[in-house]
């Protein structure tokens, strides 16, 4: 949480929001169970439905409970999350790749689109890691230069206090 949002009114607003999100999460769980009990679905459909609801619930947890909504201008957290997401997507992509089984390219059961998408993800993964790392490194260096004089000044004042 950034410092500008520490006022008592804002905390009160947050508490209301927390209760609301708790309600949303419980409702999401109930909906998942009800759908599972009421409808007979194929594996693909139930996976899409179940995981979509889980994704909505997860977004609420990250955005509100973990204060990401107010923290996203903090560039380090965002980069951490983006990198993690790319890692995760890449991992799932590799799994699809394994399932698609490149050597048996032409076999009927696997639509060609899956291995193609998977190999793209597999290429994007290392490439984006490299690109983003370079970007982060250059950015933090620039900020550090600006901030450098300030930190020095602080250190000086601290020393004075101790003396």
């Amino acid at each position, binding site marked *: 949480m950034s410092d500008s949002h520490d006022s008592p009114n804002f905390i009160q607003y947050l508490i209301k929001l927390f209760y609301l999100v708790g309600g949303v999460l419980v409702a999401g769980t*109930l909906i998942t169970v009800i759908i599972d009990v009421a409808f007979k679905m194929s594996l693909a459909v139930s996976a899409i439905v*179940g995981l979509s609801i*889980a994704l909505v*619930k997860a977004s609420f947890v990250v955005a509100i409970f973990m204060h990401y909504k107010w923290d996203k201008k903090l560039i380090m957290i965002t980069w951490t999350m983006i990198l993690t997401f790319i*890692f995760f997507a890449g991992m799932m992509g590799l799994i699809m790749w394994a399932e698609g089984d490149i050597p048996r390219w032409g076999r009927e059961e696997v639509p060609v689109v899956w291995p193609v998408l998977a190999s793209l993800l597999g290429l994007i993964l290392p490439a984006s890691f490299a690109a983003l790392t370079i970007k982060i490194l250059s950015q*933090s260096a620039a900020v550090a230069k600006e901030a450098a004089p300030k930190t020095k000044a602080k250190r000086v004042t601290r020393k004075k206090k101790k003396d």
Partner: protein
Amino acid sequence: MEIPFTVKPRPDTGLYNGKLGIWLFLASEVMLFGALFSSYVLLRVGAADGTWSMGLMDVVVGAGNTMVLIASSMFVVLAWAELKQGNLAGYKKWKWATVACAVLFLMVKWAYEWPSKFVHYDVWFKNSAVLHQKVEEGYLYDGKKLETELLEEEDDAKLSLARLYLEKEIYVERFFKTFSKEDGGSRKAFNQAWDTGSLALSGHINGYDEAQINVEISGWKSDSGVLEANADKVLLKLGVSGDQGVTKKLRNQGGILKEMVGYDEAKRAEYELTKAGFSVNLSVAGYESVKAHPWFWRTGRINEDIGGKPRVKSILFALDESHNEENGDHKEISINTDDVKRLNSYEPKHSTFFGIYYTITGLHAAHVFGGIIVMLYNLLPIGLKTWHRDREQYANRIECFGLFWHFVDLVWIFLFPVLYIL
């Protein structure tokens, strides 16, 4: 030494150090759980029909546990909000509520969900005729009760009611989740399994007849390298009473050493005696009924050969989804172990699903357990020292813990549909 940037944000990152640290930690956790989730996907996609989730996951219990964890996630963030307002008592209240929820979550896992799979068994028969007979015996009552309902959509009136009940209530929806393009894929899979006898009956073992074993000594090899005196000592240790004459007689002429003893005792005696140069025969003298719910039994346990007879003669099997005429309990049938091709409980060794299930939920439970320890530390006087020294630092520490706890909740939010619904 003062730790830098516990309260004020570090200028170049814009965050206090703890928060950046916990986010990086969570990123590595995503990778850890991501690896397990992707393993799950690979195993799930490759699983044969009827081998996934085994119809043993209780969605209602799972949903209840999910809500307990959601509540704890909400309590932990409310605790932080109280702390931000400087209300320590309110913080403690919410934090203890979080601990209570976490303990409840673990207790449901530990005392109910996990162990219940180990006393649950599947039985396959050698012969399809035996399977059909046992189904008639176990499910006829339930079939008769639901006769009109079962026969409503059924064209083939030749099918027995018991079979229809088994098919509708247990198998076609729970096990054979085949959704092939042609109509009735699940039904086809069921029919094939029924005809070949490769259909398992599942339930609990309520009792069994276990062998009572005689241990007989048939002779002693004097050239075995064991001294006579030492061989006698072994006999005395195994409970032979009397003077030297008795042991000498046993050594020279043989004879029955123990009568009607349990498996463990007989096997221990056999081991000790063989080591001391005796030749030993084990034979089954009779069977004793035991009322117990065994854990971790496998095929090898029931049909282990003891002098030509099986170690367990028959099991009393309480069938899933069947009801007794008198008291509404599960219907018990007696199964001879001679007829059994395979028996197993749902330990990871026997099931890919439970292998990955225990791995993921176990790792998740370890996170919950670790979280409880951290919360208790923060609630005890030793942890509260920080609050009395620097309130902002303590609030930040609790915020960091909250981030971890929300992540644990997040993992479960995805685990719930993946394990219980798919």
